[in-house]
Protein backbone atom coordinates (compact mmCIF):
# COMPACT_ATOMS: atom_id res chain seq x y z
CA UNK A 1 0.00 0.00 0.00
CA UNK A 2 1.38 3.42 -0.95
CA UNK A 3 1.52 6.47 1.31
CA UNK A 4 -1.10 8.19 -0.85
CA UNK A 5 -3.52 5.30 -0.45
CA UNK A 6 -2.92 5.11 3.30
CA UNK A 7 -3.59 8.84 3.57
CA UNK A 8 -7.21 8.21 2.61
CA UNK A 9 -7.65 5.85 5.54
CA UNK A 10 -6.20 7.92 8.38
CA UNK A 11 -9.51 8.97 9.85
CA UNK A 12 -11.13 5.61 9.46
CA UNK A 13 -8.10 4.01 11.13
CA UNK A 14 -8.27 6.49 14.01
CA UNK A 15 -11.99 5.92 14.43
CA UNK A 16 -11.65 2.15 14.28
CA UNK A 17 -13.88 1.84 11.28
CA UNK A 18 -11.71 -0.35 9.09
CA UNK A 19 -12.11 -4.03 8.48
CA UNK A 20 -9.56 -6.25 10.20
CA UNK A 21 -7.83 -7.06 6.91
CA UNK A 22 -7.41 -3.43 5.92
CA UNK A 23 -6.40 -2.46 9.43
CA UNK A 24 -3.58 -5.00 9.42
CA UNK A 25 -2.42 -3.87 6.01
CA UNK A 26 -2.23 -0.25 7.11
CA UNK A 27 -0.47 -1.17 10.33
CA UNK A 28 2.20 -2.92 8.33
CA UNK A 29 2.65 0.25 6.28
CA UNK A 30 2.95 2.39 9.44
CA UNK A 31 5.58 0.06 10.81
CA UNK A 32 7.62 0.49 7.64
CA UNK A 33 6.97 4.18 6.95
CA UNK A 34 8.11 6.59 9.71
CA UNK A 35 6.69 9.56 7.83
CA UNK A 36 3.12 8.18 7.74
CA UNK A 37 3.45 6.95 11.27
CA UNK A 38 4.41 10.43 12.48
CA UNK A 39 1.43 11.95 10.69
CA UNK A 40 -0.88 9.39 12.18
CA UNK A 41 0.43 9.96 15.69
CA UNK A 42 0.06 13.72 15.46
CA UNK A 43 -3.44 13.40 14.03
CA UNK A 44 -4.35 11.09 16.89
CA UNK A 45 -3.02 13.51 19.51
CA UNK A 46 -4.89 16.43 18.01
CA UNK A 47 -8.09 14.41 17.87
CA UNK A 48 -7.78 13.47 21.53
CA UNK A 49 -6.95 17.02 22.54
CA UNK A 50 -9.97 18.40 20.69
CA UNK A 51 -12.22 16.20 22.82
CA UNK A 52 -10.81 17.78 25.93
CA UNK A 53 -11.00 21.39 24.73
CA UNK A 54 -12.38 23.73 27.37
CA UNK A 55 -16.13 23.56 27.49
CA UNK A 56 -17.68 26.97 27.72
CA UNK A 57 -20.85 27.44 29.73
CA UNK A 58 -23.56 30.01 29.16
CA UNK A 59 -23.71 33.09 31.34
CA UNK A 60 -25.76 33.01 34.54
CA UNK A 61 -28.54 35.16 33.16
CA UNK A 62 -28.80 33.30 29.82
CA UNK A 63 -32.16 31.72 30.62
CA UNK A 64 -33.55 34.90 32.13
CA UNK A 65 -32.67 36.85 28.99
CA UNK A 66 -34.16 34.15 26.80
CA UNK A 67 -37.35 34.18 28.81
CA UNK A 68 -37.58 37.97 28.36
CA UNK A 69 -37.12 37.66 24.61
CA UNK A 70 -39.77 34.97 24.38
CA UNK A 71 -42.11 37.07 26.48
CA UNK A 72 -41.54 40.14 24.28
CA UNK A 73 -42.27 38.08 21.22
CA UNK A 74 -45.52 36.80 22.69
CA UNK A 75 -46.52 40.31 23.76
CA UNK A 76 -45.82 41.68 20.31
CA UNK A 77 -48.02 39.02 18.70
CA UNK A 78 -50.82 39.58 21.18
CA UNK A 79 -50.63 43.35 20.81
CA UNK A 80 -50.99 43.11 17.03
CA UNK A 81 -54.05 40.91 17.36
CA UNK A 82 -55.49 43.13 20.10
CA UNK A 83 -54.92 46.32 18.11
CA UNK A 84 -56.75 44.86 15.18
CA UNK A 85 -59.57 43.56 17.35
CA UNK A 86 -59.88 46.88 19.17
CA UNK A 87 -60.10 48.82 15.93
CA UNK A 88 -63.14 46.73 15.03
CA UNK A 89 -64.68 47.30 18.46
CA UNK A 90 -64.19 51.05 18.18
CA UNK A 91 -66.55 51.28 15.23
CA UNK A 92 -70.02 52.41 16.35
CA UNK A 93 -72.01 49.48 15.13
CA UNK A 94 -70.31 46.59 13.47
CA UNK A 95 -73.40 45.21 11.86
CA UNK A 96 -74.37 48.54 10.30
CA UNK A 97 -70.92 48.96 8.87
CA UNK A 98 -70.93 45.45 7.48
CA UNK A 99 -74.40 45.86 6.02
CA UNK A 100 -73.48 49.22 4.56
CA UNK A 101 -70.39 47.84 2.88
CA UNK A 102 -72.34 44.95 1.44
CA UNK A 103 -75.08 47.28 0.23
CA UNK A 104 -72.58 49.49 -1.53
CA UNK A 105 -71.10 46.52 -3.34
CA UNK A 106 -74.52 45.33 -4.44
CA UNK A 107 -75.52 48.75 -5.71
CA UNK A 108 -72.32 49.14 -7.66
CA UNK A 109 -72.81 45.69 -9.13
CA UNK A 110 -76.38 46.47 -10.21
CA UNK A 111 -75.44 49.80 -11.76
CA UNK A 112 -72.64 48.22 -13.73
CA UNK A 113 -74.89 45.48 -14.98
CA UNK A 114 -77.68 47.87 -15.97
CA UNK A 115 -75.28 50.07 -17.84
CA UNK A 116 -73.85 47.11 -19.62
CA UNK A 117 -77.25 45.75 -20.64
CA UNK A 118 -78.43 49.20 -21.78
CA UNK A 119 -75.41 49.54 -23.96
CA UNK A 120 -75.88 46.10 -25.41
CA UNK A 121 -79.55 46.74 -26.00
CA UNK A 122 -78.75 49.99 -27.72
CA UNK A 123 -76.27 48.25 -29.95
CA UNK A 124 -78.67 45.46 -30.84
CA UNK A 125 -81.53 47.84 -31.57
CA UNK A 126 -79.50 50.06 -33.73
CA UNK A 127 -77.59 47.39 -35.53
CA UNK A 128 -79.83 47.64 -38.60
CA UNK A 129 -79.28 51.39 -38.58
CA UNK A 130 -75.61 50.89 -38.40
CA UNK A 131 -75.76 48.52 -41.30
CA UNK A 132 -77.98 50.84 -43.21
CA UNK A 133 -75.77 53.82 -42.65
CA UNK A 134 -72.81 51.78 -43.69
CA UNK A 135 -74.61 50.60 -46.78
CA UNK A 136 -75.69 54.08 -47.58
CA UNK A 137 -72.25 55.44 -47.12
CA UNK A 138 -70.89 52.71 -49.36
CA UNK A 139 -73.31 53.51 -52.14
CA UNK A 140 -72.66 57.18 -51.75
CA UNK A 141 -76.16 57.97 -50.77
CA UNK A 142 -76.79 60.41 -48.08
CA UNK A 143 -80.27 59.55 -47.14
CA UNK A 144 -79.96 60.18 -43.45
CA UNK A 145 -78.82 63.67 -42.68
CA UNK A 146 -75.86 64.46 -40.50
CA UNK A 147 -78.21 65.64 -37.80
CA UNK A 148 -80.14 62.42 -37.86
CA UNK A 149 -76.92 60.53 -37.85
CA UNK A 150 -75.77 62.48 -34.83
CA UNK A 151 -79.04 61.73 -33.08
CA UNK A 152 -78.63 58.08 -33.88
CA UNK A 153 -75.15 58.02 -32.43
CA UNK A 154 -76.48 59.64 -29.27
CA UNK A 155 -79.09 56.91 -28.98
CA UNK A 156 -81.99 59.19 -29.74
CA UNK A 157 -84.84 58.20 -32.07
CA UNK A 158 -84.20 58.50 -35.75
CA UNK A 159 -86.44 58.80 -38.71
CA UNK A 160 -85.44 56.04 -41.00
CA UNK A 161 -85.73 55.84 -44.68
CA UNK A 162 -85.12 52.19 -44.46
CA UNK A 163 -88.11 49.95 -44.46
CA UNK A 164 -86.70 48.06 -41.51
CA UNK A 165 -87.04 48.76 -37.84
CA UNK A 166 -86.12 46.76 -34.82
CA UNK A 167 -88.38 44.57 -32.87
CA UNK A 168 -87.90 45.63 -29.34
CA UNK A 169 -88.59 42.26 -27.86
CA UNK A 170 -86.37 40.25 -30.14
CA UNK A 171 -83.94 42.88 -31.32
CA UNK A 172 -84.42 41.73 -34.87
CA UNK A 173 -85.03 43.95 -37.85
CA UNK A 174 -88.60 44.10 -39.05
CA UNK A 175 -90.15 45.48 -42.16
CA UNK A 176 -92.06 48.71 -41.78
CA UNK A 177 -94.64 50.15 -43.98
CA UNK A 178 -94.46 53.76 -44.94
CA UNK A 179 -95.29 55.97 -41.99
CA UNK A 180 -95.11 53.04 -39.65
CA UNK A 181 -93.07 53.18 -36.52
CA UNK A 182 -91.16 50.29 -35.03
CA UNK A 183 -92.48 48.72 -31.88
CA UNK A 184 -89.98 50.51 -29.74
CA UNK A 185 -91.12 53.77 -31.23
CA UNK A 186 -87.65 54.73 -32.13
CA UNK A 187 -87.82 54.18 -35.85
CA UNK A 188 -90.31 55.60 -38.30
CA UNK A 189 -90.20 54.66 -41.89
CA UNK A 190 -90.60 57.45 -44.36
CA UNK A 191 -90.47 56.99 -48.04
CA UNK A 192 -87.71 58.77 -49.72
Amino acid at each position, binding site marked *: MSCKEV*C*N*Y*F*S*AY*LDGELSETLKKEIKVH*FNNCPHCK*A*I*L*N*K*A*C*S*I*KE*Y*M*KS*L*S*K*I*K*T*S*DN*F*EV*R*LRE*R*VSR*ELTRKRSFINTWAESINYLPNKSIIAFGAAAIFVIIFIIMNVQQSNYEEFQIKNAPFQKEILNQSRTGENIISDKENEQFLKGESVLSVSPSGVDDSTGKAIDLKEGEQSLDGKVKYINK
Partner: protein
Amino acid sequence: MKKKIENTIPTDEELIGRFQDGDIYAFEQIVKRYKDQLLNYAYRFLGDIADSEDLVQETFLRVFRKRKAYRNIAKFSTWIYTITGNLAKTELRRRKKKRLFSISGLKYSNKEYEIPDIKGGPDERADSVVMDELIQKAIDSLSPKFKEVIILRDIQELSYEEVSKIIKIPLGTVKSRVNRARLRLQEILGGLFKSPET
Protein backbone atom coordinates in the same frame (compact mmCIF):
# COMPACT_ATOMS: atom_id res chain seq x y z
CA MET B 1 -35.59 -9.55 43.44
CA LYS B 2 -34.34 -6.57 41.59
CA LYS B 3 -36.86 -3.93 40.85
CA LYS B 4 -36.88 -2.38 37.46
CA ILE B 5 -36.16 1.30 37.74
CA GLU B 6 -38.05 3.19 35.12
CA ASN B 7 -36.18 5.75 33.19
CA THR B 8 -38.09 8.90 34.01
CA ILE B 9 -35.84 11.22 32.07
CA PRO B 10 -37.81 12.20 28.97
CA THR B 11 -36.14 11.99 25.58
CA ASP B 12 -35.64 15.08 23.45
CA GLU B 13 -38.43 13.93 21.16
CA GLU B 14 -40.80 13.57 24.09
CA LEU B 15 -39.95 17.04 25.31
CA ILE B 16 -40.51 18.68 21.95
CA GLY B 17 -43.76 16.77 21.62
CA ARG B 18 -44.94 18.16 24.93
CA PHE B 19 -43.83 21.62 23.95
CA GLN B 20 -45.77 21.36 20.71
CA ASP B 21 -48.80 20.59 22.86
CA GLY B 22 -48.22 23.77 24.84
CA ASP B 23 -46.03 22.68 27.73
CA ILE B 24 -43.64 25.61 28.24
CA TYR B 25 -41.78 23.74 30.96
CA ALA B 26 -40.72 21.20 28.31
CA PHE B 27 -39.20 24.05 26.32
CA GLU B 28 -37.23 25.15 29.39
CA GLN B 29 -35.94 21.58 29.77
CA ILE B 30 -34.77 21.63 26.16
CA VAL B 31 -32.96 24.92 26.79
CA LYS B 32 -31.19 23.51 29.85
CA ARG B 33 -30.10 20.44 27.92
CA TYR B 34 -28.73 22.11 24.84
CA LYS B 35 -27.59 25.60 25.79
CA ASP B 36 -23.99 24.70 26.68
CA GLN B 37 -23.31 22.29 23.87
CA LEU B 38 -24.78 24.66 21.31
CA LEU B 39 -22.74 27.50 22.77
CA ASN B 40 -19.56 25.48 22.32
CA TYR B 41 -20.56 24.58 18.79
CA ALA B 42 -21.31 28.18 17.89
CA TYR B 43 -18.17 29.42 19.63
CA ARG B 44 -15.91 27.10 17.66
CA PHE B 45 -17.48 28.57 14.52
CA LEU B 46 -17.43 32.23 15.42
CA GLY B 47 -14.56 32.50 17.88
CA ASP B 48 -16.46 35.05 19.95
CA ILE B 49 -18.29 34.09 23.12
CA ALA B 50 -20.76 37.00 23.23
CA ASP B 51 -21.78 36.56 19.60
CA SER B 52 -22.07 32.82 20.13
CA GLU B 53 -24.40 33.30 23.08
CA ASP B 54 -26.62 35.62 21.04
CA LEU B 55 -26.65 33.04 18.29
CA VAL B 56 -27.72 30.31 20.69
CA GLN B 57 -30.48 32.58 22.04
CA GLU B 58 -31.67 33.08 18.47
CA THR B 59 -31.60 29.30 17.95
CA PHE B 60 -33.94 28.77 20.89
CA LEU B 61 -36.22 31.58 19.72
CA ARG B 62 -36.53 29.83 16.38
CA VAL B 63 -37.28 26.56 18.12
CA PHE B 64 -39.99 28.41 20.04
CA ARG B 65 -41.50 29.99 16.94
CA LYS B 66 -41.21 26.96 14.67
CA ARG B 67 -41.96 24.20 17.14
CA LYS B 68 -44.81 22.92 15.00
CA ALA B 69 -42.42 22.52 12.07
CA TYR B 70 -40.48 19.74 13.80
CA ARG B 71 -41.49 16.27 12.71
CA ASN B 72 -40.44 13.15 14.53
CA ILE B 73 -38.80 11.75 11.42
CA ALA B 74 -35.35 13.00 12.38
CA LYS B 75 -33.71 13.32 15.77
CA PHE B 76 -34.38 16.54 17.61
CA SER B 77 -30.63 17.07 18.09
CA THR B 78 -30.18 17.02 14.32
CA TRP B 79 -32.83 19.68 13.95
CA ILE B 80 -31.49 22.03 16.59
CA TYR B 81 -27.88 21.63 15.47
CA THR B 82 -28.94 22.39 11.90
CA ILE B 83 -30.56 25.64 13.03
CA THR B 84 -27.43 26.67 14.95
CA GLY B 85 -25.12 25.70 12.09
CA ASN B 86 -27.15 27.68 9.57
CA LEU B 87 -27.19 30.74 11.81
CA ALA B 88 -23.43 30.44 12.35
CA LYS B 89 -22.76 30.20 8.63
CA THR B 90 -24.97 33.21 7.97
CA GLU B 91 -23.09 35.16 10.60
CA LEU B 92 -19.75 34.17 9.08
CA ARG B 93 -20.91 35.32 5.65
CA ARG B 94 -22.13 38.58 7.11
CA ARG B 95 -18.78 39.12 8.83
CA LYS B 96 -16.91 38.32 5.69
CA LYS B 97 -18.82 41.01 3.91
CA LYS B 98 -18.16 43.50 6.67
CA ARG B 99 -14.61 42.26 7.14
CA LEU B 100 -15.05 42.01 10.86
CA PHE B 101 -13.73 38.52 11.21
CA SER B 102 -11.01 38.54 13.79
CA ILE B 103 -7.92 36.36 13.63
CA SER B 104 -7.02 37.09 17.20
CA GLY B 105 -8.74 33.99 18.51
CA LEU B 106 -10.55 34.35 21.79
CA LYS B 107 -12.45 37.55 22.43
CA TYR B 108 -13.67 38.47 25.85
CA SER B 109 -16.64 40.66 26.56
CA ASN B 110 -17.66 42.19 29.86
CA LYS B 111 -19.86 39.21 30.60
CA GLU B 112 -18.61 36.63 33.02
CA TYR B 113 -18.22 33.22 31.52
CA GLU B 114 -17.45 30.11 33.44
CA ILE B 115 -14.46 28.19 32.18
CA PRO B 116 -13.85 25.06 34.21
CA ASP B 117 -10.78 24.88 36.43
CA ILE B 118 -8.00 22.84 34.91
CA LYS B 119 -6.12 20.66 37.32
CA GLY B 120 -2.46 21.29 37.74
CA GLY B 121 -0.18 24.18 38.53
CA PRO B 122 -0.25 27.67 37.00
CA ASP B 123 2.14 26.68 34.23
CA GLU B 124 -0.08 23.83 33.14
CA ARG B 125 -3.16 26.01 33.22
CA ALA B 126 -1.42 28.67 31.14
CA ASP B 127 -0.24 26.06 28.68
CA SER B 128 -3.74 24.74 28.38
CA VAL B 129 -5.19 28.17 27.60
CA VAL B 130 -2.49 28.76 25.03
CA MET B 131 -3.15 25.38 23.47
CA ASP B 132 -6.86 26.15 23.29
CA GLU B 133 -6.11 29.37 21.49
CA LEU B 134 -3.80 27.66 19.04
CA ILE B 135 -6.31 24.91 18.31
CA GLN B 136 -9.04 27.51 17.80
CA LYS B 137 -6.83 29.47 15.41
CA ALA B 138 -6.04 26.32 13.49
CA ILE B 139 -9.76 25.46 13.23
CA ASP B 140 -10.51 29.02 12.09
CA SER B 141 -7.97 28.67 9.31
CA LEU B 142 -9.83 25.70 7.81
CA SER B 143 -12.27 26.28 4.99
CA PRO B 144 -15.92 26.39 6.17
CA LYS B 145 -16.79 22.93 4.87
CA PHE B 146 -13.90 21.32 6.78
CA LYS B 147 -14.40 23.46 9.84
CA GLU B 148 -18.02 22.42 10.07
CA VAL B 149 -17.37 18.68 10.01
CA ILE B 150 -14.38 18.74 12.34
CA ILE B 151 -16.27 20.74 14.97
CA LEU B 152 -19.26 18.39 14.85
CA ARG B 153 -17.19 15.21 14.73
CA ASP B 154 -14.17 15.85 16.95
CA ILE B 155 -15.40 18.56 19.34
CA GLN B 156 -19.11 17.88 19.62
CA GLU B 157 -18.38 14.15 19.22
CA LEU B 158 -21.38 13.44 17.06
CA SER B 159 -21.52 10.31 14.94
CA TYR B 160 -20.76 10.42 11.24
CA GLU B 161 -24.41 9.65 10.51
CA GLU B 162 -25.61 12.57 12.56
CA VAL B 163 -23.09 14.93 11.02
CA SER B 164 -24.28 13.78 7.60
CA LYS B 165 -27.89 14.59 8.50
CA ILE B 166 -27.09 17.97 10.05
CA ILE B 167 -25.04 19.20 7.14
CA LYS B 168 -27.14 17.32 4.59
CA ILE B 169 -24.27 15.73 2.71
CA PRO B 170 -23.64 12.03 2.02
CA LEU B 171 -21.93 9.93 4.66
CA GLY B 172 -18.94 9.23 2.42
CA THR B 173 -18.42 12.95 1.88
CA VAL B 174 -18.48 13.54 5.64
CA LYS B 175 -15.81 10.90 6.21
CA SER B 176 -13.68 12.26 3.41
CA ARG B 177 -13.91 15.84 4.73
CA VAL B 178 -13.13 14.75 8.30
CA ASN B 179 -10.09 12.91 7.00
CA ARG B 180 -8.82 15.91 5.09
CA ALA B 181 -9.57 18.29 7.95
CA ARG B 182 -7.59 16.16 10.39
CA LEU B 183 -4.65 15.94 8.01
CA ARG B 184 -4.75 19.69 7.54
CA LEU B 185 -4.83 20.29 11.30
CA GLN B 186 -1.85 18.05 11.87
CA GLU B 187 0.05 20.03 9.22
CA ILE B 188 -0.72 23.25 11.09
CA LEU B 189 -0.29 21.95 14.64
CA GLY B 190 1.91 18.93 14.20
CA GLY B 191 4.97 20.51 15.79
CA LEU B 192 3.15 21.12 19.05
CA PHE B 193 2.29 17.55 19.75
CA LYS B 194 4.42 14.70 20.94
CA SER B 195 2.19 11.81 20.19
CA PRO B 196 1.79 8.50 21.91
CA GLU B 197 2.12 5.33 19.89
CA THR B 198 -1.07 4.21 18.12
